[in-house]
């Protein structure tokens, strides 16, 4: 009997420290971060959702598939590490410009400028040095739709 009391004396702090840490680090900590995140940074906390005409059209950070040849296309998911790489290189974007111009009638130079603008925005977001130049496909697509609503009428209304 003395043995079991002794054992419980040794085991007790280990159990207690585990329980208190589960509460502190497993419950209180993530809930507190969530509360602050939801209050102060709701956009990022909820997945950086992109709006178009008052509707959520996806997350800036997650690639989405485009069927229409009028949009820039993300990398095939097998080619990226995450499978949802939302970005493409500037070269990749430029190589798609011609066919998009053909499909939409938007002048090549305008498309080039839009690509450049998006690249600049990303550059600034990464303080220039922290990332290579890249283009966010969803942001670029939203820009296209905003600037040329007529060209994309079919796509955004879901009519094929």
């Amino acid at each position: 009997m003395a043995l079991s009391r002794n054992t419980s004396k040794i085991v007790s702090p280990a159990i207690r420290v585990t329980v208190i840490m589960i509460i502190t680090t497993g419950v209180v900590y993530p809930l507190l971060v969530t509360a602050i995140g939801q209050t102060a940074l709701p956009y990022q906390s909820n997945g950086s959702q992109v709006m178009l005409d008052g509707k959520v059209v996806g997350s800036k950070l997650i690639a989405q598939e485009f069927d229409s040849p009028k949009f820039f296309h993300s990398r095939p998911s097998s080619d990226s590490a995450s499978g949802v790489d939302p970005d493409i290189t500037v070269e990749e974007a430029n190589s798609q410009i011609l066919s998009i111009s053909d499909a939409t009638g938007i002048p090549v130079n305008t498309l080039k400028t839009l690509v450049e603008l998006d690249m600049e925005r990303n550059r600034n977001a990464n303080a220039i040095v922290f990332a290579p130049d890249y283009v966010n496909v969803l942001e670029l697509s939203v820009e296209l739709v905003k600037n040329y609503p007529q060209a994309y009428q079919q796509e955004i209304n879901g009519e094929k």
Partner: protein
Amino acid sequence: MDIIQLALVIIVTLGFALLFGKYLARMIVYEVRPLEKTLGRVENGFYKIIGIDKYEQMTWKQYLYALLLTNGIAAGFVFAVFMLQNYMPLNPMPAFSGDLAFMQAASFVTNTDLQHYAGDQQLSLLSQMVSLIFVMFVAPASGIAAAFAFIRGFIRKNFGLGNFYVDFTRIIITLLLPVAFFSAILLIAMGSPQTMEPSITTGTIEGKSQTMVTGPVASLESIKQLGSNGGGYYGANSAHPFENPTGVSNIFETFLMLVIPFSFPIAYAHLLGKGRGVSILAAMVIGFGVMLILGLFHESGPSGVETRFGSFGTVLFNVASIATNTGALNSSLLGMNHDAIISLFVGMFVQAIPGADGTGMMTMIVYIILTLFIVGLMVGKTPEFMSMKINPKDIKLAVLVFLAHPALILIPTVVAYTTGSAESLFDKSTPLSFTQILYEFTSAAANNGSDYLGTAANTPFWNWSTGLVMLIGRYLPIGLMLAIAGSFTMKDRKEIVEPIKTQGPVFVGILVVVTFILTALTFFPVLAMGPFSI
């Protein structure tokens, strides 16, 4: 650009390591920290709940026992959650199989975080939050506590090594938790989600529907990196844009991985001599530099590499992640050049450039003891470390630490082949498939956690074998190293200087060369058969 990025990482890491190092030193010897009164009051509350006397000192055996016991209970909790998550609230998912639950519990509690599942598809939000985030504090806190006790062994004489529960509590409450908290907020600002919604479903531009898994990602991400854990919220780990949204977050997370391991030599410098600590730091930086140069020798990608990181950001992150035994990767290993893969292997073989939180420092000191003994006799004196003689017992323990690593990598690799478990994953034995299998056990033995096999390895053989390798690879060296510390507390320290000073450029050079040669001699054949031949 890349150079500026690298310089920034180095400057910021070392700058913060100076601060953190001083803080760690104060924690180790119970000196006054900033906000000591408040912190002390909070800690005392915890001690009361835990039911311990904070002044009670432990021998190395008691310390190890308390560490094992606490880790065992924590692992048991994680195991139970994984087995029962289908009965629990918050987006219940099917329960894990017994072997997978065992493997994952072992993996997280040993600070390995090797994952044979995809978090975004197989874990409930509750599992991610209550079990994963919790155990991601337990694992590094245990490693750091062991290192605290270890370092005390060289400072004190005929005294205990501290109290595990006190160290464990202080490390979580006054080091990991506050830093993880602020880092989580920063990560949210950079784009990591933090919500109690398990997923978000939205429409797409083309009017289709898209479902994204979300949750308390940022709060997991920060401790995942800070605590050299490396287990991803998502299967894609740090390549996933929610875990690592931008180039800035990529560098910030790199910093988080490096900062505590590089703080230890600074703490050492404060406690046991400036020159000695700085020399250890130099050796770690050189080793890290070698890895980085090897990794950058050829360009990696673009296949398997995320666009926003590019080749440089990918290699920098991955090298830092492997060097610190965090193991979170921001790319697919298949996308990396084979020289870069060799560099990752080197980091996992050495485990101390700078290694994981706490254990990296301990391992480095074992290398110093071995180096001192091998070459130190050449001055004509029994080698000494910290002015204390190195005796046969210390050598036995140090050699065992060094021996355990190749044994835990090579023997299971052979077992995987002889049992046919290796071939079951691949059609043919090629240098690449061999590299992947070797990598799996190396990652497990080093408690690294980066993986080359992924969810394909979720079979009973791989779960049981890697689970065992991780447990032995974690607790055997910690036990042996604490025993070394215990042995040193019994020793007389001389007043006079050691025959070979463990500082200065010459010593750093010899330490690096001897460590490199010992590692190379042990792993040269498998590196030649594996990544070298890809």
